């Protein structure tokens, strides 16, 4: 598989090593990976396989020790910290296992925070946040705080927050890990629907059954890509 310039995400020989000298621990060994626009990718692997570290690097939250990360064809290697932050704010959306919503703020305000760091003014933030909440089926819950919402609803608020700025890449870390099976299924169905609308999504999970519903599954083991399968066909 060769990296393409039109791809949303390109990893080229990405290595991540923690510590130095004899204590050095290499968690990722030369990962090459390309995600095209509109792809829906599951990254699976047991804990310690390096998938969280991979997600940190894909999400521009961390830098590789060596190798290149390209998002939308732009090499991030020389990006300053501030520029990386702005890139996250503008082009990436994150969904976390524990939602990470602000407790005392309404769904509308939490989702609006997804636009805050791009300098979008409040009235515009509220309008777009309301749109995003309607899109995830929470149009009737705009003024509820996380405490007044179920876990599944909270995760949908978090998805709305990750979508509100129309990112090029939606990243999810164990998005159903804290939910009962019905709520988890609802969130995954939401991802399916977003994918059908053309969103590019990468979901990291240790749960093979969740990954099984995705058109493309990347299996990690010991810091390497063990397999990269596009439904039924080797990529």
């Amino acid at each position, binding site marked *: 598989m060769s990296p393409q310039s039109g791809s949303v995400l390109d990893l080229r020989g990405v290595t991540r090593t923690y510590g130095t000298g004899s204590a050095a621990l290499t968690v990722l060994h030369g990962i090459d990976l390309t995600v095209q626009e509109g792809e829906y990718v599951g990254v699976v692997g047991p804990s310690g396989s390096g998938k*969280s570290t991979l*997600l*940190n690097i894909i*999400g521009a*939250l*961390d830098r590789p020790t060596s190798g290149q990360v390209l998002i939308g064809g732009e090499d991030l290697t020389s990006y300053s*910290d*501030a520029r990386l*932050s*702005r890139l*996250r*704010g*503008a082009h*990436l959306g*994150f969904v*976390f*296992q*524990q939602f*990470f919503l*602000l*407790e*005392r*703020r309404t769904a509308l305000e939490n989702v609006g*925070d*997804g636009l*805050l*760091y*791009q*300098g979008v*003014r*409040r009235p515009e933030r509220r309008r777009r946040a309301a749109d995003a909440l309607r899109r995830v089926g929470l149009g009737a819950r705009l003024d509820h705080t996380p405490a007044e919402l179920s876990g599944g609803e909270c995760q949908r608020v978090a998805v709305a*927050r990750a979508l509100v700025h129309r990112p090029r890449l939606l990243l999810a*870390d164990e998005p159903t890990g804290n939910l009962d099976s019905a709520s988890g299924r609802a969130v995954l169905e939401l991802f399916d629907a977003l994918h059908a609308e053309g969103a590019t999504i990468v979901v990291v999970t240790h749960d093979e059954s969740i990954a099984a519903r995705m058109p493309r599954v990347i299996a990690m083991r010991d810091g390497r890509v063990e397999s990269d399968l596009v439904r039924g066909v080797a990529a």
Partner: protein
Amino acid sequence: MSGPGPVDRLRLGALGLTGRKGRAALSALGVAIGITAMVAVLGLSESSRADLNAQLDALGTNLLVVAPGQDMMGDDATLPDESVAMIARVPTVESAAATYATDATVRKSDRVPSAQTSGIVVAAAGAGLDAAVSAQLREGRWLDAATSGYPAVVLGSTAARRLAIGSLDRGVRVWLDGQWFAVVGVLDPVVLAPELDETALIGFEVAQKLYGDDLPPTTVYTRVDTDQVSATRALLARTANPSSPTEVSVSRPSDALAAQAAADQSLTTLTLGLGAVALLVGAVGIANVMVISVLERRREIGVRRALGATRAGIGSQFLTESVLLSLLGGLLGGALGVAVTTAYAVHQDWGVVLPWLPVLGGLGCSLLVGTVVGLYPALRAASVPPTEALRSM
């Protein structure tokens, strides 16, 4: 793309406070106490100074007091009998009135032992004395042409208290040098001549009858041309006692009052220092609370970094929070300080001078404190890595 606008930055900063109201209030309290102390003490000293100035304006600063000093042997000197008339002839002198002290004692009644003088001086009051010292009567009336020849007495405020003189309605008498004197008036405290507070003043004619014509003046209260106070002051000693001017002391009571007010400044400085210590303690409290807040909110910081916040953005959020916290204390302290100043000034019957400058200074102080102590927590918050967002709990 730019980051959040100024209003959004303020909102972000306020977020940490509204989320933890009790903690925010307690940590702002330290600063509030410090600012209250500083505003109140500055406001009070300003009010008291304004009150003194108003008092001096009303009483006049043109009173010069001429009194005998000491002779070359260190003994008490006396003023020549004619000194009052001599002083009154100086062109820049507007009026001159004297008291003439006697050796007499005054007692509540003849049954009180004669040794018990209560420290009250009996003196004859020259014409125009009340006007010269701006004396106000609390009760009754001043000695006039009708009473100055009869056994009548006007008591200074302290003298009246020591003699336990209450209302004069039913006719009060005191035992003065072996005969009864009617108390016709009681003075308010005399600000420019506090020595009169402990004096029982009798008419000049009575005094001459009892003690003879050559009673020497004890103190000459001299009102002079307001523009010529210094020049006149230089003349008065020589005028009062041409033969030995060094035995005359000339003082200006309004100066003494101003000096006394200046001496009160040391208390102001002390309280100001205590206020500063309270402010410092409050500042440390805020720093402490902010550091804890950063530790507790690493996850929130990580999520915000993931949502696009830069290091500077996170730093400014926590710096804003610290400044708002401190400013909250400053506002509270300023309000309390104004309240204390107003309440005390009203209680003291002073004109209320709102201490705008100390309030502004206090707000400035709290702004500075919030910025300085917020810097370290803000730096710590800014150094929380974005990967904190994805760390498993």
